[in-house]
């Protein structure tokens, strides 16, 4: 296939955070030093070249950016200070905007005004919904001295909201992943036997849960994997609690501290706080390559998650300490931050990596297994 070079892609990618375009002279140091380099699935130098030449088709079929966890070794040791690590980060933004068929991702990544408008708009809608509905602000407390939260926000309505949000977000993510599948597997004409889809499927949940590959990036006293894993598990547990187990989670009783519901909640909160503080300090100090450059979407992601976590903690404290009004208003604030965070960040922005990364690993292993199988059958045919 022949592709036309495109000098205009550069203009796009500069908006998405690419720092240096011309410095790279293709020595290949980045590919050599990367712990995760794999011939077909992660080759930073080659991605850099495709980006430089504006080879859109190749770039869109390339899953390399997702295979990179940004340890920053490549940028640290780049002899030309070409920042290959940040290029990979920017390409993740680019690919997110390409997979997203609605075009909103691109709009939010490249237009700060629109991103803020969307977040504030959604927050306003949440507040307006509460205002219009006018929930009862019951000042009386339960026998244990807790706030009557379920009379303020009845489980069935909140559950309905949770599930409709989950369905919309999931629909968007799934359709984007199908788009990604088309660009990575179908369009380049990669032939994958159906059996391989099944045999490789276990890698999807396995990598989602463990992020084992990321561990290889923890070299030279870096603990990115640990911080990230705590934040990820904290968030996932909390998400499951509020969506699937809402009746068990949003309760008026004050359980003993060793009750599973409180223990899980505290673990999640701790995991989120630990990871977030690690990231926020890093981004302020810019003490490591991974934190050196912060695109607006990077900051929005951590700030919104931090605000959600803090408002969640306050909500919990106000409720068990019997402070009804504080509890109710904090509840509204918590939801007003949470909804835009999930609706904007997950399908359209940085958070989408929770889906794209495991799927990229899945697609990479599909390709690898298929080519190995093809090689073996070819070999068998040759022998026969």
């Amino acid at each position, binding site marked *: 296939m022949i*592709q036309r070079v495109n000098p205009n892609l550069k203009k796009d990618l500069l908006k998405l955070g690419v720092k240096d375009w011309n410095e790279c002279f293709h020595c290949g140091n980045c590919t050599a030093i990367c712990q995760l380099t794999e011939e077909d699935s992660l080759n930073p130098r080659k991605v850099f070249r495709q980006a430089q030449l504006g080879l859109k088709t190749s770039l869109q079929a390339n899953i390399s950016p997702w295979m990179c966890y940004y340890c920053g070794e490549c940028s640290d040791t780049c002899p030309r200070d070409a920042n290959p690590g940040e290029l990979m980060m920017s390409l993740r933004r680019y690919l997110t905007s390409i997979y997203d068929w609605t075009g909103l991702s691109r709009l939010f990544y490249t237009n700060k005004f629109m991103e803020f408008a969307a977040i504030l708009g959604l927050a306003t809608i949440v507040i307006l919904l509460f205002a219009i509905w006018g929930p009862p602000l019951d000042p009386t407390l339960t026998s244990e001295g807790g706030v009557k939260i379920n009379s303020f926000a009845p489980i069935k309505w909140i559950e309905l909201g949770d599930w409709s949000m989950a369905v919309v977000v999931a629909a968007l993510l799934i359709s984007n992943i199908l788009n990604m599948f088309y660009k990575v597997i179908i369009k380049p004409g990669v032939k994958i036997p159906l059996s391989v889809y099944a045999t490789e499927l276990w890698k999807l949940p396995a990598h989602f849960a463990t992020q084992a590959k990321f561990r290889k990036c923890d070299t030279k006293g870096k603990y990115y994997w640990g911080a990230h894993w705590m934040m990820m598990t904290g968030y996932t547990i909390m998400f499951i609690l509020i969506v699937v187990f809402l009746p068990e989670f949003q309760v008026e009783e004050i359980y003993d501290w060793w009750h599973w519901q409180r223990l899980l909640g505290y673990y999640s909160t701790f995991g989120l706080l630990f990871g977030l503080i690690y990231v926020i300090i890093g981004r302020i100090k810019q003490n490591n390559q991974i934190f050196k450059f912060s695109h607006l979407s990077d900051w929005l992601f951590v700030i919104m998650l931090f605000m959600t976590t803090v408002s969640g903690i306050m909500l919990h404290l106000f409720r068990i300490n019997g402070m009804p009004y504080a509890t109710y208003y904090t509840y509204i604030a918590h939801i007003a931050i949470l909804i835009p965070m999930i609706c904007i960040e997950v399908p359209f922005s940085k958070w989408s990596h929770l889906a794209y990364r495991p799927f990229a690993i899945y697609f990479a292993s599909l390709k690898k297994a298929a080519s190995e199988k093809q090689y073996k059958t070819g070999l068998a045919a040759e022998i026969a």
Partner: protein
Amino acid sequence: MEEIRIGVYICWCGTNIAKMVDVEDVARELSEMPDVVIAKDYKYMCSDPGQDLIIKDIKKHNLNRIVVSACSPRIHELTFRRTLENAGLNPYMFQMANIREQVSWVHDDRIKATKKAKALVAAAINRIKWHESLDKRTVSINPSTLVIGGGIAGITAALELADTGSQVFLVEKERKLGGNMAKIDLTFPYLNSAQQIINEKIDRIEHHPNIRIFRNTVIDEIFGYIGNFNSTIGQNGTEAELKFGNIIVATGLKSFDPSGIKNYGYGKLPDVITSLEFEQMLLNGKILTKEGKEPANVAIIHCVGSRNSDEHEYCSRTCCMSALKYANQLRSAIPEVNIYQAYADMRAFGKGCEELYCSTSRKDVMFLMFDQQKDLPVIMEAKADDSCKMVIEMNEKLSGERIEIPADLVILMVGLEAQDDAKELARSVGISMCGNSFFMEKHPKLDPVATTTSGVYVVGNCQAPKEIPDAISQAKAATARIMATIKQGEVEVEVITAEVNEDICCGCKTCIQVCPYTAITFDENNSVSVVNEAICKGCGTCGSACPTGAIRSRHFTDNQILSQIKGLMSKSLELNEL
């Protein structure tokens, strides 16, 4: 005839020789050869005490021939010849036997190596018996100089020489002076105007009282030798007889004609032009396609005619930087233009050039790498509905992808190659050519300005493609060399030359055909060959070709060589018996 008294000296060269050759044994055995008065071994013959040893022995034992058995004569022959001179002997009464490079360094059997060393020294002893005294010869120098070629190198050399008061004859093939430099707009890497530099020099040269310029003139034939050349130059129907002592060849190179490379469609696609044609565009101040439109996409293809076994294997050295220069000029002339550089390797060496590469690469220039050896890009017409006039298809090496480049104007960075008449000129001036038709310098490292013909110098591109400052440096270096000979008034010429025994010469002219230096002429009156000793380099080709044995090469006479072989064989036979 005086008695032959030979002194033989075997050098240890520290352990270099002594570890593999039993030097004491060699000295002992050879001291018994006839006519050998004394044979000694010493740690370092070339050291001052070593040389003093020889001088003392010459005086004490009345020696008249010296054999030193040590390293290669390339290293120390001149040293020991001077030693002989200091002792009052003729320097040619000396012979060296190389027992280091030819024995100790290349063998690992000490007994056999010692035998071989004895054979080599015996050969030298046998040979030296036939040595004759040879005298230094000098010729006077005509202070005028002929400069062939009026480009930047020739102009520089002419001005330098003329400024010292010497007469210079400058011969230019074309009507205009300035050569290739007059055809370009800016110089790299600092993007200064070439015209300003060259025009000032042309103006000076045209009004210089010591310079006579011959335009539209080609040199036919040059006679003579260093210090005393002459030539008849025809100009405008009149003929001028010129006499000069030195020659500077500065004929430059011409640009490669890309019509033969099918992939590039030069001559068929109207907007595929050469770098020289682009320079003309720049000089005219307008970058336009044939349709008269400003191009939106300009592609520059490197290495056209260079570094490829089909055209020229060598690198033309200047094109990469010119291509970078064009990117800068294009960017300032048409700020929005897309610039593509299809290159094989970027070779931006030299002062300021890497910096030019770096600064250019930051000006939104797309660099695309192709395989110059076996996979050239292909330029073709674009489809009617395309946004550009042409597309260039290539396999891009760094991405491994097959790509196409849109283009409205394609500049071919044509390489440099020898002038059409380079061969004739080399013949008439008496210099050699390399395989790729550049004029050959005397030594590629140690003497890149002189040639094997004394008094003839090669400067500028005709010696090899180079940048302007290199050409100028070379021109000035040649000038310094010529000034030195002019100041001396005379110059030493080779002593080891051929001589013709006119009684035996049968006039077959075989020697004239084989002489690589055109040093032999034919005397029609006496029907014999005559060697011009000022030109002869003593290579011996004529001597070995002469069917009657009429030509004798001084210092390499038949007797000297035959007895050398005899001496070698006398010891070698023993070697075989082992």
